[in-house]
């Protein structure tokens, strides 16, 4: 199980900011959008991109999770990025896109409106996130990048879905259930 089964090149799963994965201190990011907001993840994390299909809903899943998907025999949880950022549920259609990414040794999918392009950024161009955010969203960002007129936020996927993919024991799941009741 795991990344080895996916036939995209699993060269490196590091996603540390400033890590030189491309020569001359540049990094490449895949950018995608929710409405007018643009986000990006390190290209080395991206395993594949596919159109939205119906997923299987699991009981007691978090509200920003859409369900699980069969990715060639691996069961992959799919998260709604818009809902994760508390901007309402995405009314997903077949033109919506799921970006399958690797977070450490786990594979997850993020539902977004569309994928924009690939951004090559000099490590020096990554700006700090200003610390004026009141709803704690900025703690899941590792930096900001300007691409022409647009501002792109670089996602820290590890921290974004930490609760859902790091809990390994059933008692945590039970707690989650108890919270809901």
């Amino acid at each position, binding site marked *: *199980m795991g990344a080895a089964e996916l036939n995209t090149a699993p060269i490196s799963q590091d996603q540390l900011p400033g890590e030189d994965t491309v020569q001359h201190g540049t990094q490449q990011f895949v950018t995608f959008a929710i409405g007018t907001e643009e986000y990006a993840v390190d290209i080395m994390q991206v395993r594949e991109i596919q159109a939205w299909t119906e997923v299987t809903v*699991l009981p007691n*899943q978090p509200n920003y999770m859409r369900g699980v998907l*069969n990715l060639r*025999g691996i*069961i992959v949880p799919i998260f709604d990025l818009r809902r994760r950022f508390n901007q309402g549920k995405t009314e997903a259609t077949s033109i919506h896109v799921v970006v399958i990414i690797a977070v450490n040794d786990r594979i*997850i999918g993020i539902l977004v409106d569309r994928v924009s392009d690939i951004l090559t950024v000099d490590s020096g161009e990554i700006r700090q996130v200003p610390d004026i955010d009141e709803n704690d969203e900025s703690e899941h960002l590792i930096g900001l990048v300007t691409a022409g007129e647009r501002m792109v936020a670089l996602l820290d996927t590890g921290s974004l879905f930490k609760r*859902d993919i*790091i809990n390994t024991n059933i008692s945590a799941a039970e707690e989650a259930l108890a919270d809901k009741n």
Partner: protein
Amino acid sequence: MDDYAQFKATYFAECAELLGDVETQLSELSTGSQDPEVLHAIFRAVHSIKAGAGAFKYVQLAAFSHEFEALLDRMRDGRIAVTEEGVSILFRASDILSAMVESAENEETLTPDFGKEILDEITFIVKGKVTEAAAEDDTAESSAEGAQNEAEASPDSQTLYHIKFAPKAELFKHANEPLLIIRELKSLGELKSIANLDRLPPLSKMDGEEAYIAWDFILKSTSRFDEVEEVFEFVTDDCTLDITVETAEAVEDVIEKIDEAPIDQAAQPSSAANAGAPKAQAAAKVTSIRVDLDRIDRLVNMVGELVITQSMLSQQTSDLPSEQFPNMVRGLEELALHTRELQESVMAIRMQPVKSVFSRMPRLVRELSAKLGKKVTLTTIGENTEVDKTVIEEISDPITHMIRNSLDHGLESTEDRIAAGKPETGNVSISAEHRGGRIVITISDDGKGINRAAVLSRARERGLITETATPSDEEIDNMIFAPGFSTAEKVTDVSGRGVGMDVVRRNIQALGGRVSIQSTPGKGSRFTMTLPLTLAVMDGMIVQAGGSKYVIPIPNIVESLRPAKDSLKRLPNGQKLVSIRGEYIPLCALHEVFKIKNAIEDPAQALVVLVESEEFGTTGIVVDELIGQQQVVIKSLESNYRPVLGISAATILGNGKVAPILDIEALYRISQKNLHKSSPSSNGDASGGNDTDLSPALAGELSGSIASSTDIHLQSPG
């Protein structure tokens, strides 16, 4: 990094197997087997370990195995008698050998005198008996020994050795090279080599894989006899070898004779026939290969995918008119056939005999019986029964624990046995067999059986059952699986450390298995555990609730039915019941537990699947409808997500969608928890008024009977 890491890994994997073999063969030997093949097998295993140890320069391991091998060698040719004492030394030596292999594998260093005691013992036996043998025997062997002694006596003087060396075809097959041996001989002293071409056939009759050339060597060396012999160490089985010590004149004769001989004999066709003889004895062809488990897992996964794709294809094309597309339809049918066969063969790759687990038990029994001072014979039956690798890994601990339990608590002490008129030696047997697509493993002993009075009083003491309850004998016996239950008066270091049979049962249940015990007082007890043959696939019933599909494991299902309206009842606490053939069975609605929308609320319109569990007995799961039965491939949710309460794993259906597999025991617990939380009045609103409210008196009686039934099963919900 270590360039040889890969080879070392292979070596240690082999060592583990070889040590297992040694263990098995030693057990055979200790039962008094006279079969010479047993000693040969042990010898070969130790020899292989030694060879590898030498190659990787594990000096201590090589030195020890060398001595061990020497002892075995003398035992197998009868120079040292195989006594009980001797076998016990062999056992201890094999323990030391395992420890050494383990430390070599972990790259630890052992103290130089590790295992010295046993080594000294071996050396004593070997040296002591050798001189005896040499004195008695009058054969070439003894003259060789004599020569050895002679050589040892005067180490500085040069000795003339006459070595006749005729390689067999196997020598080359085992990738040995005579040239290297000759070079090594040459390093010992002055070497004269004469090739003996007697066996060489005419070119037309030559077989490329045969060995035709033999050599005569005259070696003038200061080396001792055994040092010369050692050059041929790895090829002794694959050649004809004769080493003698010669006087100078005799050597001259030999050289002359050889010089004359070959020319007229070489062309004789009969030699080709002679050379053909060893070919028949050639070692059996290699019939197995070593494959990384990851690769097999990947194969199994991909075949699982193929099966899903195939069933999707057949679903999509099921309404294809066969008269219009005859080839297409036939092709799809064949595809279905082949995928099923492919899946079966792939699953068979992972099947392994339970022998690998069973073979560890004789040693356990030997050690325990020594510790407990009981005489025990262990019988194993059906050790070639095959089961999936994933199951093998998991059954070792439960079996070990049950054997410990049988020896410690089951069998009486020797005095008690004699007093009870039983044979002094206790019997424990472990057997495995296939039954109905599952593997059944039983562990039985002829001990005293379960002390039911003690169990019952302990159960009352611990509050596991009420004072007034009168459980049946069988129920009492199975109480030993209750959590925290131990009847042993004192805690021994063998078993009875508080973590007892409850852990065993939980582990077995986690594998989808069951365990039970039958006991006859004074006659003995028998544990029976049944397990699925594989943890990779399972028979499942696909059910639907509110548009979502779920899988219920078939082994849990008793029956399914659409309940009549008047058979549905409700307790004041909101617990719904269905009455079937006079029994009241609690209901657990899937849509309520999982909060599924658009499901059928009224059980009389829906379906009830009766499931059984050792934890809570029978319960009815309410679903919308049954879709069908199917073999499902079990997929982990945890590898990319987290565990989900009420769901044990997931599978992929024919349409490529994921379906959760229900964990019915967790479902029951959730429904009980929900019951305690919600007040009866709110429950009444939600129930839709379809249920007949029971009269308080009947309700009281019912809740009492349910409570007592949970008591008997020793698991109170929540």
